[in-house]
């Protein structure tokens, strides 16, 4: 695994090294297996993964770099948590909390996070429901050990590897039982297989594609539910919530709540009514049965039955321009809508249909990762299999629109619904953001899903992508509000006609430890009016260290928390002057950068690229990793930069010699010293009491022996404490050893004003 900052210079260095050192190359091999991104706190599991509304529940958490977690918070303030206390009133170890869900807390998915030494952790989905909750407390991997589950309850469980979890429930003939299992929708890695079997464990009904089982009980008795992972994987990351509920015959099935896919950020369009004005009415499968509509329209339909084609006809005038939008995949459905619009000319019984437009996918505005080893784009697809396109009418007359699901040829599922909107242009936009990654030849994708947990002096960049609607092509400015003290946000706008911008979030070196819930939005002027749209944040459900071996599972977050560690600092801060840098168009601009180093680095230079509209094509340049400052030179002539105000930043990847919590070593040493002193004192006491016991009279002997015995117990405990303290030193020392980690260094933002050149 080789990190490639600059693949050419790296390759050149390697070549030179090979020439110089020859056979000894293997001893000085480049740094393999480097991870990307400094440690970030990640909350990975909560057990249970949800709770009943209006209840109080004990929750145990686990994750990465959250050993020192304090506060457990939720995106909805009606869920609160407090450390669980032991009998002595002290917080229990091992991440135990008592979580209270208020009676008015909305049912659904909420984000859970913990505040740690490094700042706010990544999120874990926490469900709030109305059913009674249970937790799997012991292995239930055989029929004999099946866990009893009451109808109308939900069980929180973790899958064992190479095993099948068994549950048993009792039901009566004719009951309609729905068995639903939340997995991917609550951030689990489990691809669940859920089976209803008879009491002997013989399979009756199976669901493997994430659907719910709809079971009509054939006879009174016990039934078994089996759950396993599709390929029998298991472990901490493979958890689930299994719900068994009775639903009246004919009533719709309400699925367990689920997080939203990333591409759902672009739905719905502003102002769209919750319910469509019109429903498709079958049969409308061919031209002879086309459903008559008039434009504009808003239709709800379903890709049902298999190979369903819904045909609509409307009159339109030459020169009319309509915008067609379909949502289906963005509802989280496995569909791929496709539309064909034809002009229909009828002469007697014959008709001539001429293609006017075809619509299929909404392309991702930026290149999406190919999930290969080398990073070649964000693994977030802001596009969709849905439709958003312009329909230009070329001839007066009857037009026919047919909509199909390209994935629906053989599938009979009425739940595969769509919403079709045809409207006059309503220019608008939607924005989504995620942590910026850079082109590294490294399978580690942790950086792309890190939380906004800032170290002092760090600038974190978010990549922001817009879906533009109905021809809107103006600038989109980006902004954040509600940031903690000492944190500033600078949006590098999405320029007119483009789809990508950046948001830089900077924590001042002296920013105090804090966390806040920020608001993130895009602003534009559309038809003379200021328009503000929220920017959703996306992240992976799990950190991915090997993109070759694992497909990411990205989703939208409910909120935008931003924190400052206050205890740990960025390895390097690149600070430009605060004031606006001015340059005359056609001339070169030299920007001084102050380097504040707080770590050692591997290598002598850092190669920087430029981000920000009009300057992102500036050539890469090297700055020293040992000097205290440098100069960046931007040639506005070569870049053909037009006069105006700009915001830019520089960024690059540096291999920091990261030391994790070095202060913990000193603290451990102090603790060890104290433990030693305590031990020595006790040993002295032991000696004293032993001698006293020896000298004791027959009468005082029992009491003296008792005292010796008591102090010996203390001595044992103190010895163990010393050993534990020594072990802590060892662990802290090991963690504090410098470790090569690629840090994506982003400079503080730089304001530039390009003035027009004087007329010649």
């Amino acid at each position, binding site marked *: 695994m080789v990190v490639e900052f600059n693949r050419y210079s790296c390759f050149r260095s390697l070549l030179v090294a090979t020439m110089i050192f020859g056979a000894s190359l293997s001893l000085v091999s480049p740094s393999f297996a480097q991870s990307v991104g400094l440690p970030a706190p990640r909350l990975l599991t909560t057990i249970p993964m949800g709770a009943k509304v209006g209840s109080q529940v004990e929750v145990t958490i686990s994750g990465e770099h959250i050993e020192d977690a304090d506060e457990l918070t939720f995106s909805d303030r009606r869920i609160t948590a407090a450390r669980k206390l032991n009998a002595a009133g002290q917080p229990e170890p091992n991440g135990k909390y008592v979580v209270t869900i208020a009676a008015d807390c909305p049912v659904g998915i909420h984000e859970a996070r913990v505040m740690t030494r490094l700042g706010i952790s990544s999120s874990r989905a926490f469900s709030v429901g109305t059913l009674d909750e249970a937790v799997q407390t012991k292995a239930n*991997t055989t029929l004999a050990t099946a866990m009893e589950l009451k109808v109308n309850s939900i069980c929180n469980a973790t899958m064992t590897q*190479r*095993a*099948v979890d068994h549950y048993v429930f009792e039901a009566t003939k004719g009951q309609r039982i729905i068995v639903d299992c939340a997995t991917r929708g609550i951030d689990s890695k489990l*691809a669940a*297989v859920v089976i209803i079997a008879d009491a002997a464990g*013989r*399979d009756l*009904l*199976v669901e*493997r*594609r994430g659907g719910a089982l709809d079971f009509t009980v054939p006879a009174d008795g016990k039934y078994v539910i089996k759950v*396993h992972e*599709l*390929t*029998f*994987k298991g472990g901490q990351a493979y958890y689930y919530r299994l719900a068994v509920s009775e639903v009246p015959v004919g009533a719709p099935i309400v699925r367990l709540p689920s997080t939203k896919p990333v591409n759902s950020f672009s739905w719905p369009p502003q102002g769209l009514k919750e319910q469509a004005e019109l429903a498709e009415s079958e049969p409308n499968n061919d031209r002879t049965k086309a459903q008559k509509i008039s434009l504009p329209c808003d239709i709800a339909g379903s890709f049902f039955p298999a*190979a369903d*084609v819904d045909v609509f006809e409307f009159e339109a005038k030459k020169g009319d321009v309509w915008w067609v939008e379909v949502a289906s995949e963005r509802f989280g459905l*496995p569909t*791929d809508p*496709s539309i*064909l619009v034809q002009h229909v000319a009828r002469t007697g019984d014959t008709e001539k249909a001429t293609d006017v437009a*075809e619509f299929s996918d909404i392309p991702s505005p930026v290149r999406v990762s*190919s*999930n*290969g080893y080398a990073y070649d784009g964000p693994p977030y*697809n802001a596009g969709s299999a849905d439709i958003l396109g312009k329909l230009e009418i070329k001839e007066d007359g009857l037009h026919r629109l*047919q909509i*199909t699901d*390209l*994935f*629906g*040829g*053989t*599938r009979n599922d009425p739940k595969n619904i769509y919403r079709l909107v045809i409207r006059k242009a309503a220019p608008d936009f939607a924005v989504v953001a995620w942590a910026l990654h850079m082109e590294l030849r490294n399978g580690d994708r942790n950086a792309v899903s890190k939380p906004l947990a800032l170290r002092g002096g760090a600038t974190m960049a978010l990549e922001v992508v817009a879906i533009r609607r109905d021809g809107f092509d103006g600038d989109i400015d980006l902004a954040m509000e509600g940031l903690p003290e000492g944190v500033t946000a600078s949006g590098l706008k999405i320029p007119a006609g483009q789809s990508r911008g950046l948001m830089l979030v900077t924590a001042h070196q002296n920013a105090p430890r804090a966390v806040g819930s920020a608001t993130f939005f895009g602003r534009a002027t559309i038809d003379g009016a200021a328009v503000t749209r929220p920017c959703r944040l996306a992240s992976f459900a799990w950190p991915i260290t090997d993109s*070759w071996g694992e*497909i990411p599972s990205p989703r939208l977050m409910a909120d935008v928390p931003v924190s400052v560690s206050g205890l740990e600092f960025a390895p390097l801060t690149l600070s430009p002057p605060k004031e606006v840098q001015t340059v005359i168009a056609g001339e070169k601009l030299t920007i001084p950068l102050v380097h504040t180093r707080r770590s050692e680095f591997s290598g002598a230079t850092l190669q920087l690229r430029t981000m920000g509209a009009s300057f992102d094509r500036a050539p890469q340049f090297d700055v020293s990793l040992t000097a205290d400052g440098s100069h960046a030179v931007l040639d506005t002539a070569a870049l053909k930069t037009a006069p105006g105000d700009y915001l830019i930043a520089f960024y690059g990847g540096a291999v920091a010699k990261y030391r994790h919590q070095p202060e913990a070593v000193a603290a451990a040493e102090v603790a060890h010293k104290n433990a030693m002193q305590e031990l020595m004192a006790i040993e002295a006491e032991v000696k004293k009491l032993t001698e006293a016991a020896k000298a004791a009279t027959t009468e005082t002997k029992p009491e003296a022996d008792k005292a010796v015995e008591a102090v010996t117990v203390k001595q044992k405990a103190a010895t163990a404490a010393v050993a534990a303290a020594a072990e802590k030193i060892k662990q802290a020392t090991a963690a504090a050893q410098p470790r090569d980690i690629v840090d994506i260094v982003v400079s503080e933002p730089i304001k530039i004003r390009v003035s027009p050149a004087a007329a010649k």
Partner: protein
Amino acid sequence: MPYSDHVSRRRFVLRGWLVSLGGFFFLAVMPQPVDAAEPPVSFVNDVMPVFTKAGCNVGVCHAKAGGGQKGFQLSLLGFEPLEDFDHLVTESRSRRLFFGAPDQSLLLLKASGQIPHGGGVRLAASSEGYALLREWIRQGATFDSQTAPKLLSFEVQPTRGSINRGGEQQLKAIAKYSDGSIRDVTSMALYESNDKAMADVSERGLVKISDIVGNVAVMVRYQAKVSVYSASVPLGAPVENLPSSKNFVDEHVFANLKALGIPPSVLCDDATFLRRVTLDIGGRLPTEEESAAFLASKDEGKRDKVIDELLRSPDYADFFANKWTALLKNRRDDESDTVSNFAFHAWVRDSFLANKPYDQFVRELLAATGTVIGNPPVAWYKRVKEPKQQIEDVAQLFLGVRMQCAQCHHHPFERWSQDDYYSLAAFFSQVGRKPSGTRGEDLIFHKRGIAVAANMKTGVPLKPGALGDAIPEIAADEDPRLKLADWMGSKNNPFFAKSLVNRYWKHFFVRGLIEPEDDIRDTNPPTNPALLEALEKHFVASGFDLKELVRVITQSRAYQLSEVPNAHNVVDRQNYSRYYPRRLQAEVLLDAIDRLAGTQTDFANLPPGTRAVALPDNSYNRSSQFLRVFGRPEAESVCECERVQSSSLAQSLHLLNAPEMKTKLAAATGRAERLAKEDKPAEAKVRELYLAAFSREPRPQELKTAIDYLNEPGSAANANYQDLIWALINTKEFLFNH
């Protein structure tokens, strides 16, 4: 190239030779004058059949793709006369024919072995074929495709008959031409028996019947025409006391046996039936409890009930998914195939569990769209990527038609042309692919457009056509694969249901009504056409209900006949007058051994206790020598023949002394260890073993032998039980379904 052009070209070449070699040679190469009265030898009607009869134009000889042999190429089976003429007469500076002295022609010298010929002597100098070629050369080696009478029809005489065992029948091959002429082409026709053990046929059409009874067919080919002679070989024994027919299967089987005079064996006993049907439907041995209960039951309908019970069980789904996933190439070539293979296997398995109608199952596979996880049959498109491979697999697996030949030339034994091949391929021409988030996997969708596929030879674009059946116009928006599925599932489809019922018949009766089961053609008739047709109708009428098909087959008395032959039917190998025993399949045998030994085979990353019949793909063969030795397929082909069912020394040795066997027998948690420790009479323990292994009680002598062995002094009890189980495993009664 028109004929006249060819003649001109030949003359031009000749002229060149004349100029360069002078007058003497001129005389030598000049074709001899032809007497107007002597009958001309026709290139297409006389010469070409000689090449075909002599085997010159088969794929391994001069019709080999890419240049034939030693630079001399002929078209396969003479399907391209013009090309053949060109290669013979003008190619290589016309060196193959010598008009002045035809016997010195390179063609004849090689064919008759007078000079070295890699193919040996194909035409002796004294043969009729040699004389014909010689005469054609002497007459000037003309090409007469335009003028020669066209071969209109061809038939063998007689077309059917009844021959006693050991008897003979001379066949006569008659060709009819467009000029009204009729020729006896017996000596030039090609003959092939569909069961060489039953009937051998000479090069001149003499059929010799062996002592095996039943129905046999001889395919007779002449040029591009085919005819079939069907013979029934009766035993002629009295057929009395037939079991009462349970359903139409019996009526047809017994009618055939009556016609042939083959008395069927008696019905098998309950123990044999239970073991047989549990192995055939559930792919496992009955448990001791099931066997004991079944044997004790006095219920007259218990056989039907156990069939229904088995069909309801997930064992049925596991066992048939195991069969189908191998045929559908659920093959793991890379670790990244794991998820799609599990998903695909699960889809197949769940389809059988839910008893999804077969036409729907095939439709979901053929017209799959979306992602593998969202719609697992899409995984088939991951493994079978090219439209040609897709139609070849679909035709062979679901229609029982082998189309591979027709990709490059007209099918030699069938009516399928290249146009048929590419018309079928056109159904798959609009399969669109988009990259998915998963490496190596595509999203599959219908790509809008008119489906066409170009004939590789003619370049003519062809619209979808289904083996000679017209398919209504398919609009650009319609997925042609759905239309193919419609055609397949139509009630009158001549292949779809027939192919499946024949395949399932073979599953239960060891031998298909048509063999091989995926080679259905006019020239390979079924041994019991009425039965095949009745099964087909029943299957279609049931709504392609696979469980019902299994039910009707296994409920039949024919299925429940004993494997023990009577005084007459030992010679029967194809009329189902008795049950034909079969060695257990690799997976079933491994599970059976584990069951008897009380052990489990551990398969990587699967839950302990996972049975071999439930394995999702071929990857487990790598770690299991047992599965490899006993022929578990690698899922490389759609042919059931990939599963090796033959016996081998390696299999015997494995069962006798492989460490794997020893480990199972001596397992600390195994049955031998348990029995050795268990406090119950030895007789009860032996009874348990016999019930577990054979689903029956031990016979008195078996019981005595076993108990005597167990009581032998000097050896440990657990070792004795291990030995006893080992001995039971190595019996034919255990290793075979019988």
